[in-house]
C-alpha cells in the first residue's frame, strides 16, 4: 500500500518535473514566468494523438514528433511574441504570455471541441507484480523516459558549449553578451529545450491518463510552476526535486483523505516554502543589487 502510493506519487511527480524544467530554465535566463508553457504541454499531447492516429507511429516516433513540433512552436512564440518585449516592463511580458496562453487554448477548443479525447493505444499496459506490489508498465515507461530526459538535459547543460552559454546567461545576462555569447541564440535554445520536455510530458500524461483536452495545461502548468518554485526557480535539479516532492505530497494527501483539499496542498506548501526559504529548496539566495 505505502510502496504503491509512492510509485503513484513518483509517476505524477515525474510529469510535473518535466513541465517544471521548462519554467525553471526560462526563468533562470530572462526572469519570465511563461504562463503559456502549460499550453505547450497541451499541444504536445494533441500532436501525440495526431501522430498515432494519422501516421500509426510507434511510441518513440510519437514522442520525438511531438517534441520536435513543440520545439518549433516554442521558438516561434518566443520570436514573435516575447522578443519584441524583452526590454519592456516585466509585467507586460507576463500579460503577453497570458494572452498567448488564452489564444492557444481557444485555438485548440475551436479545432477539437472542448471535450477531452482519448489517446489511441500505443503502449501495451501490462500489470507487473512484485510480491504484493502491483504497478503498470506505463508507469515504468513514464519514470524511465523522464529520468532519461533529465539526465540528457543535465549532460547538455554541464558538458556542451551551448550549455555553458546558458549557465553564463543565467549568471549575468548582460556580461554574458559582452563576452561574445549570442544571447538570442541561447534564449531560443532554452525555449526549444523547455518546449521539447513539456511536449514529452504531454505525450506521457496523455498515454497514462488516456485523456487529452484543450484545458489540460492550465492546472498542470500551474502545479508544475509551483514545483519549480519549490525546488528553487532557475535551478534545474531543483525543478526535478520539486516535481517529485509535489507529486508525492499530493498523492499522500489524497491517501490520507484530504482529496478535497488537493489543490490547496500544493499552494500551502508553496507559501510556506516562500516564507521560510524564498528561493526554494535548492535555489541560491537573492542578491540585492542597489
Amino acid at each position, binding site marked *: 500500500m505505502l510502496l504503491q*502510493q509512492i510509485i503513484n506519487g513518483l*509517476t505524477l511527480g515525474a510529469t510535473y518535473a518535466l513541465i517544471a524544467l521548462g519554467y525553471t530554465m526560462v526563468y533562470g535566463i530572462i526572469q519570465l514566468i511563461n504562463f503559456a508553457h502549460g499550453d505547450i504541454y497541451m499541444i504536445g499531447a494533441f500532436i501525440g494523438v495526431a501522430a498515432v492516429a494519422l501516421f500509426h507511429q510507434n511510441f518513440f516516433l510519437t514522442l520525438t514528433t511531438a517534441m520536435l513540433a513543440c520545439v518549433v512552436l516554442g521558438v516561434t512564440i518566443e520570436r514573435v511574441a516575447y522578443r519584441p518585449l524583452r526590454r519592456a516592463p516585466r509585467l507586460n511580458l507576463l500579460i503577453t504570455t497570458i494572452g498567448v496562453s488564452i489564444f492557444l487554448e481557444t485555438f485548440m477548443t475551436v479545432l477539437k471541441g*472542448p471535450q477531452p479525447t482519448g489517446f489511441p493505444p500505443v503502449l501495451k499496459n501490462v500489470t507487473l507484480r512484485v510480491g504484493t506490489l*502491483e504497478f503498470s508498465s506505463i508507469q515504468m515507461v513514464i519514470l524511465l523516459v523522464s529520468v532519461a530526459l533529465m539526465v540528457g538535459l543535465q549532460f547538455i547543460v554541464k558538458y556542451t558549449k551551448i550549455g555553458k552559454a546558458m549557465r553564463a546567461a543565467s549568471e549575468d545576462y548582460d556580461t554574458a553578451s559582452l563576452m561574445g555569447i549570442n544571447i538570442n541564440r541561447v534564449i531560443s535554445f532554452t525555449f526549444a529545450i523547455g518546449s521539447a520536455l513539456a511536449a514529452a510530458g504531454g505525450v506521457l500524461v496523455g498515454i497514462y*491518463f*488516456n485523456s487529452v483536452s484543450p484545458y489540460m495545461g492550465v492546472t498542470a502548468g500551474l502545479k508544475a510552476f509551483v514545483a519549480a518554485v519549490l525546488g528553487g526557480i532557475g535551478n534545474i535539479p531543483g525543478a526535478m526535486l520539486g516535481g517529485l516532492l509535489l507529486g508525492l505530497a499530493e*498523492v499522500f494527501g*489524497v491517501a490520507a483523505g484530504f*482529496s*478535497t483539499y488537493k489543490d490547496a496542498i500544493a499552494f500551502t506548501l508553496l507559501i510556506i516554502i516562500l516564507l521560510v526559504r524564498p528561493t526554494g529548496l535548492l535555489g541560491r539566495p537573492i542578491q540585492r543589487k542597489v
Partner: protein
Amino acid sequence: MKKYKVALVLLSVLLMIALVAGCGGKTGTSGGGENKGGASGDTIKIGFMGALTGNEASYGIETLKGMKMAAEDLNKEGGVLGKKIEIVESDHGSKQTEAAAVVQKMISKDRVVAIVGDPTTGKTKLAAPICQQNKVVLLSAGAVGPGVVELGDYIFRDTLLDAVAAPAVTDYLVNKLGWKKVAIVTSTNNDYSVGLTKIFEGALAKHNAQIVDRESIQDGDQDFSAQVTRIKQAKPDGIIFTGYYTEGGLFMKEVRKQGLDLKMAGGDGLLSPVLWKLGGDAVEGSMVYTGFAADPANAAPQTKEFIKKYQAANDNKLPDMFSAQGYDAVMLLAKAMKEANSTDPSKFKDALAKTRDYPGVSGTLTFLPNREPVKSPVYLLEVKNQQFSIKAALPTEAPKA
C-alpha cells in the same frame, strides 16, 4: 499625510450619505417593468439560454436542436393561438457573468415570454431571480440539483430529478445486483455531484447498504491512483460514481489498471460517448440512469417519432436527453399557452403548473403542487460494446414532500 486623512474622512462621510440615501431604495425590487412583449407582434418569442461555446457547450447545442424541432412542428400546424413560435438564441460561453447579461437581454430587448434553460443547475439558479422579477417563465431542460423551483413561482424544470431516480436505482443495485457494500465517489467542485451523493447516501441508508469508502475527486483531475488504491483496501461490491463522464471514464480506467473487477453506477452526468472514448474497455458494464433512452425498439410512439425526425436531420445520430427535454420544454410551454388562452406569462404559468401525465418524448411528466417534476420510468443503461443499452426500466415514486 494630510491629504491621505482627508481622503479617508471624505470616504467615510460619503459612505454615510450613501447609507442614508440607500435606505430610501428598498432592496429586492428591480426593473420589473410589465412584460407585454413577445405576444404583441405576430410571433411568440421563446428564449434559449445555454452555452454554445465553452466547456458546457455539448448540453446547450443539443437542447437548442430539440427546441428548434419543437418550434418547427408547432409552426407547421399553424403555431400557437394563431401566432408563430420564434426561438431566440444566445450563447453565454459557459460564463456566469455573461449568462446574467444574456438573460437580461432576452427579457428586456427581445421581449421573450419564456426562457428554456439553462442545462446546468448553477446557471439556472442564476437566471431564476431575474426571470421571477420580470415575470417571465423559466423552464430548465437540464437542471437536476436541489433548490431550483423554490426560487419562485415562475421557475420550472422538466428533468428527471435525481431525488426521484436515484432511490429507484439504489433499490435495483442493492436488491437485484446484491451491492451490500458500496464505495461512493464524489467530485467536490461539481455541484451536481455533491447533490447526487447526498441523495444516494440517503437511499443507501434506507436499503441498509453499507458505505465502506468515500472518495473525493475534482472535475479536471486526471490522476486517481491514490483514490483507487484506497478503494482496493475497502473491498466494496460496487462503485457509485456521481461525477461527470470525463472523470468517470478515467476513474474506471484506473480501477482496471489496478486490477479491480468492480462495476460503476452513476447518474446522467455519465451519459456521453466520451465515457468509452476515455475509458475504453474499462467502462464495459458501467451503469448509467437516465430519463430518456433513445431506444427505437422499446420507446413510446411519440418518442419513436421524435427519434426518427432527429435522425433524419442529424445524419442518423441518435438524440440524447438534452435534445428530448428541450423539445418537451417548448411543447409544454405551447400547451400551457393554449390552455390559458393567453401568451401572458403570469397567466400561462398557472396552466403549466397544472400539467398532469403529459406524454412527452422524454417520458411521462407530472408537476407536483410544489412545481417539482416527477417523471417515469427511469431507464438504467449499461455500456455494452461501446454502446448504451437498456438494462432495466424502473418505475419511480414521487418523493414524499
